[in-house]
């Protein structure tokens, strides 16, 4: 028994040591309260109205910045902020939204993992007078949703497709091989896919698709896929990994294979320091990125909630936010204005 206690103590110390370990390399801004709704509720101060944020996941900088901005906006408006991370799992998200509803929060802002899993609980929330705002995606049945704040993903894909077509026209007489890395089951990706195909077809109709693979929004998976695509089709010149994590995997593969950055073009939906590094650094594989700033999305959605809760201002149901186009030419200017460092 005594030995077991010693073992458990060692485990505990080990855990505490690592939990205390913080890297200096990490920016300080993101508030990463791993607050399950139940735990978060305990921290709620009496009398304050509550807004709960349901995150799609928290694995990349885009979502982390969204969380931080949402928290800041809520607090600036005198609201209590609760957060839960579904980590891309619709069942987990359903439980989290159920918890928010059962705790009686005043409003829920969330990014649905799929278009139907939370329909019933959103209806229940509506009956209880809880306001529900979708961000990014929304439910198929919009009956009980109060607002939907989103970017035009089809247009984002379209703009990138046009840029890719122009690259092919300028450098390869309008012809060239194209590879897409995406998550086929992700609805946002499906919208981007639709837009991209249209944009590229209109600009460079002779482009040939040699790969459409599931990069799982994961850097190492995407890197391996890109290496394999490069084996079969070393002359692939256009790459469309739909999110930055996949883009960085593709870029690592291109770099590893010694591909000349001037001869290929990678397009993605990007954000953050690494996007800037890959556009304006010594190996600018990334020729264009659509920026859908998560900070704007968070601010717009939480502010709408705050305006309603504090001033009774009605929601505008559909809020379409603009996207920014960043290329190798304006990347430094764009990102340094946001506080990032030029490479």
């Amino acid at each position, binding site marked *: 028994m005594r*030995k*077991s206690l010693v*073992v458990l103590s*060692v*485990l505990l110390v*080990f*855990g505490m040591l*690592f*939990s205390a*370990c*913080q*890297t*200096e*390399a*990490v*920016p300080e801004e*993101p508030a*990463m309260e*791993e607050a399950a709704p139940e735990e978060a509720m305990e921290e709620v101060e009496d009398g304050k109205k509550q807004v709960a944020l349901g995150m799609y996941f*928290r*694995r990349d*900088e885009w979502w*982390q910045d969204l969380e931080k901005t949402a928290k800041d906006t809520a607090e600036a408006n005198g609201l209590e902020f609760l957060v839960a991370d579904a980590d891309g799992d619709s069942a987990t998200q359903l439980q989290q939204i159920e918890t928010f509803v059962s705790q009686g929060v005043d409003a829920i802002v969330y990014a649905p993992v799929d278009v139907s899993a939370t329909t019933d609980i959103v209806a229940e929330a509506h009956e209880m007078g809880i306001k529900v705002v979708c961000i990014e995606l929304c439910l198929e049945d919009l009956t009980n949703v109060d607002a939907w704040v989103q970017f035009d993903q089809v247009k984002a894909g379209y703009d990138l497709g046009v840029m890719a077509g122009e690259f092919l026209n300028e450098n390869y007489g309008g012809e060239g091989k194209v590879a897409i890395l995406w998550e*086929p089951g992700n609805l946002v990706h499906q919208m981007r896919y639709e837009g991209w195909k249209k944009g590229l077809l209109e600009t460079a109709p002779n482009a040939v698709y*040699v*790969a*459409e*693979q*599931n990069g799982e929004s*994961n*850097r*190492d998976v995407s*890197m*391996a*896929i890109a*290496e*394999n*695509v490069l*084996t*079969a*089709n*070393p002359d692939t010149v256009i790459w469309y990994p739909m999110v930055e994590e996949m883009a*960085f*995997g593709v870029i*690592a593969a291109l*770099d*590893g294979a010694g591909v000349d950055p001037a001869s290929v073009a990678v397009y993605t939906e990007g954000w953050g*320091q*690494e996007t800037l*590094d890959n556009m304006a650094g010594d190996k600018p594989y990334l020729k264009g990125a659509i920026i859908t700033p998560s900070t704007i999305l968070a601010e717009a959605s939480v502010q709408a909630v705050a305006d309603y809760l504090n001033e009774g201002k009605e929601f505008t149901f559909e809020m379409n936010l603009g996207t920014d186009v960043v290329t190798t030419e304006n990347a430094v200017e764009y990102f340094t204005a946001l506080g990032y460092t030029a*490479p």
Partner: protein
Amino acid sequence: MATTEITKRGYKENLKKFLAVSSQNYAIIYILLGLFVLLSFTAQNFLTLNNMVNVFRQSAIYGILAAGEFFVIISGMIDLSISSTAALAGILFAMIIKAGGIAMWPVAVLVGLLVGILVGVINGILVSKLEIPPFIATLGSYLYVRGIVYMSTNAYPIVSLDKGYNFFGRGFIWGIPFPVLVMAIVYIIAIIISEKKKIGRFFYAIGGNEEAAYLSGIDCVKIKTLAYAICGFMASIAGILLMSRLGSGQPNAAIGYEFDAIIAVVLGGVSFSGGKGKALNVFFGTLFVAMLVNGMTIMNINPFAQQIIEGVVFIIAIWNDVFRNKKTR
């Protein structure tokens, strides 16, 4: 004349015997050869030196993880925490290099490896001393170790690292990718330990029948803990190579790698119930998985269909294990 016939008969019988024994002990080699021939004819540019290097390079990280998992599985246990352990070791490696520059690489590697061993030892204690079932204990480790990774990085990737950082994952020595060299060394050591050393026989003995092993004087607690420590060590090597290959420190790297490593081990003919299997075959199992994925991507097979194929291969491998175990009984 009669002598020639007898010789011929003897030759045929020997060949038959060889094929029977080798197909039982080294079935994975035949399967691998079959896949190789199939892809050579069907997948564009599959049979090129570049692509072969590619397949080996991509198999290296899984291969090293599988080598560690091999020691745990032949001892009759399982380790589901290897992907998290790899991520933790790799992240610490990246953090130290970020903080101190590439000159700190020996410290970074050492710390990464020690942490891997530590996680392995903790797993070993949980399983052997506290008698928590391996599946549960290592599932817990999978969660808490990944949690430590996220907590220590705030889930932010560690980027803008010195150029030399990439060498471990992308560099070449004598024209051979560095991770492939590491994998080769790992397997040579694994084969020596498992087949030539007394300690190797202890792993098999515990996996085959723990009670009998205990009664014959083997310190099961120590050996089981050692198996997990080796597994953690291998996972940390894989993690360091992976992070270097990615050119950054990725908190969410290696998620799901434990499944590929386990598939490779089982495909290599290692019994899921322990006590049987060869390290060399695990290497071929790893190559099989890498070649399959490589071939399917080259052929641009629908990603969903790829998942189905991988799942079916896994089930067949397990079924083969169950079938062989029944036959043995």
